[in-house]
């Protein structure tokens, strides 16, 4: 399929392919096995300007937007879902500043993120606040020209590797979700420490870690937007980042299909290549068709965001749900096509199947996303 990517998007794709072939492919199994953060690859991405694409030109970026981010994330995910999410999580972390940050905050933080000099992470989830983001317990208490943070954030992608964190905490616990606020916290701030590093099923190249705040004093100017706007910041951030998860899912699925196509053209049983069997051909056909549909929906969602549309949370959720379900199905089928070899770590498809699973879970479970989609549809239908 030719999506008529313009020259800039084509250039991004070529860069990601070169990074993938030369720098990810040779070490992805090792990163997975050893739960190792791809620091060196992040440096290469920085040098190649990949961190500039979602940051406007006036803040040191190239300002190419959501579609560009989707293309990059998809292409990197074909090689390794863990490396790709380590990249994309930077955009997620920067999103609150991009969307709602003050001019001073943008000027201070975005250029160092665009250059890749610093990495970024978004911290919303807590032990008791997953899908129910209103369950956040981390407190931020105003003390003169500072806020004092206390609490623990859990499962933070790029935790311990990023230098800049956007953190959701309660400034007014009485008001629940409406009492939440968003803050920028820099690594090294006294009272801010890293906790447990998670041992995950998939995307093991990515770092997932606890953030612990104990009387952590941050300057009041690090408040993003206004007190009480934290939940809105978080929801807008996730609406904007979901096409990125969809793109990750499409990339993982494409990587698995590529392996299945290659293997089924080499493997012989009963004296013929196994791709000559109709049962297997039908599987390949469905995998390819589902991936193209997921890609089209993902690009549509990303394109809608770039067009400046206000209401895109429905299609953004649809892309995330559909693409992640496709990724799970396609990677499972790829393991099936490779048979016993597919189940072994010598082949990459078992890793892809493990990597795919998280796309159905994070940045809003697919169940929550279906609720979002249905609510948006019902609202649209009755607005007339």
């Amino acid at each position, binding site marked *: 399929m030719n999506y008529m990517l313009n020259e*800039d998007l084509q250039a991004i794709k*070529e*860069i990601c392919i070169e990074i993938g072939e030369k720098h990810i492919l040779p070490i992805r199994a090792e990163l997975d096995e050893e739960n190792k953060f791809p620091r060196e690859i992040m440096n*290469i991405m920085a040098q190649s300007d990949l961190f500039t694409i979602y940051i406007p030109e006036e803040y040191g970026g190239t300002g190419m937007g959501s579609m560009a981010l989707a293309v990059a994330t998809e292409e990197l995910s074909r090689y390794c879902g863990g490396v790709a999410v380590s990249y994309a999580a930077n955009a997620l972390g920067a999103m609150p500043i991009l969307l709602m940050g003050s001019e001073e905050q943008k000027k201070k933080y975005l250029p160092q993120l665009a250059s890749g000099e610093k990495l970024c992470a978004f911290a919303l989830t807590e032990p008791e606040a997953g899908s129910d983001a209103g369950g956040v317990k981390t407190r931020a208490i105003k003390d003169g020209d500072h806020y004092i943070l206390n609490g623990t954030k859990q499962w933070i992608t790029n935790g311990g590797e990023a230098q800049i964190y956007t953190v959701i905490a309660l400034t007014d616990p009485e008001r629940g979700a409406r009492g939440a606020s968003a803050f920028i916290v820099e690594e090294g701030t006294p009272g801010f420490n890293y906790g447990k590093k998670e041992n995950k099923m998939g995307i093991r190249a990515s770092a997932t870690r606890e953030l612990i705040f104990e009387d952590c004093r941050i300057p009041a100017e690090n408040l993003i937007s206004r007190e009480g706007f934290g939940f809105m910041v978080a929801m807008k951030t996730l609406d904007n980042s979901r096409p990125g998860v969809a793109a990750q899912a499409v990339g993982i699925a494409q990587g698995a299909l590529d392996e299945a196509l290659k293997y089924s053209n080499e493997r012989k049983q009963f004296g013929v290549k196994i791709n000559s069997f109709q049962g297997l051909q039908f599987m390949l056909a469905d995998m390819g068709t589902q991936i193209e549909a997921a890609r089209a929906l993902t690009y549509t969602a990303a394109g809608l965001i770039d067009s400046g549309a206000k209401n895109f949370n429905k299609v953004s959720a649809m892309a995330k749900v559909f693409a992640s379900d496709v990724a799970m199905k396609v990677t499972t089928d790829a393991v099936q096509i490779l048979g016993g070899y597919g189940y072994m770590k010598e082949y990459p498809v078992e890793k892809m199947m493990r990597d795919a699973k998280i796309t159905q879970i994070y940045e809003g479970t697919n169940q929550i996303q279906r609720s979002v989609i249905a609510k948006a549809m019902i609202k649209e239908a009755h607005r007339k």
Partner: protein
Amino acid sequence: MKFVVAVKQVPDTAEVRIDPERGTLIRDGVPSIMNPFDTYALEEAMKWRDELGGVVTVITMGPPQAESVLKEAISMGADDAILISDRAFAGADTWATSHTLAAAVAELGDVDAVFFGKQAIDGDTAQTGPSVAASLDWPQITFVGKVRELNKDSIIAERYVETGMQVVQTELPVVLTILKDANVPRVPSLRGKMKSRKVQIPVWKLSDLGLTEAETGLNGSPTKVVVTATPEARTGGQIHEGSTEELVSRLADLLLGEGGEA
């Protein structure tokens, strides 16, 4: 610092064949790439530019389509590029090529170092770099595996040669030929690719270099390729199976049978 990197557009050797009648490379339909060794030369020049400041200018001598390797170099981070192209340069051997490249380096002026790949994968001569040094009457360090020190006056580099490693120091300006041990070439950047799309690459012709037709191209080339041939393809070996005793005696029979004498 002012660094020049001389690159060559070559056919992707994985795809190349030789015309047995004419003894020349069949280039039709074969993709052209930047000579892989030149990517290490480019990276080395850019690495030192990044450290010391200055500019990296990439040059190539070739037909108009050789512009694509210059654009690739710019996408990787070279500052500018010059295409040295004229019908008069066609058919040049390494002597005429070096003479022409040296004239371009002289024309650029105040160059501190010229970086070459250790050799091109099509001709495999490894002569052009050293010959440019000779033409310019500059010192040269060939087969550089590592540049230890480089400053505005001098360079210390490690040469990896068959007998071991030599550490060589010399004054600038200098001509270097770089091995792949020296570095890992960087991936092109997005800004580099955007720049390379827009950049107008100047073309220097015979008249720009102050050379004559007699000194360049086929006219200026003392070397004549008499014949180029492809070695006959080797036939597959034989595989024999059996016990050690059987195999030893069969092997002895075969050797004696074929060679005549043991």
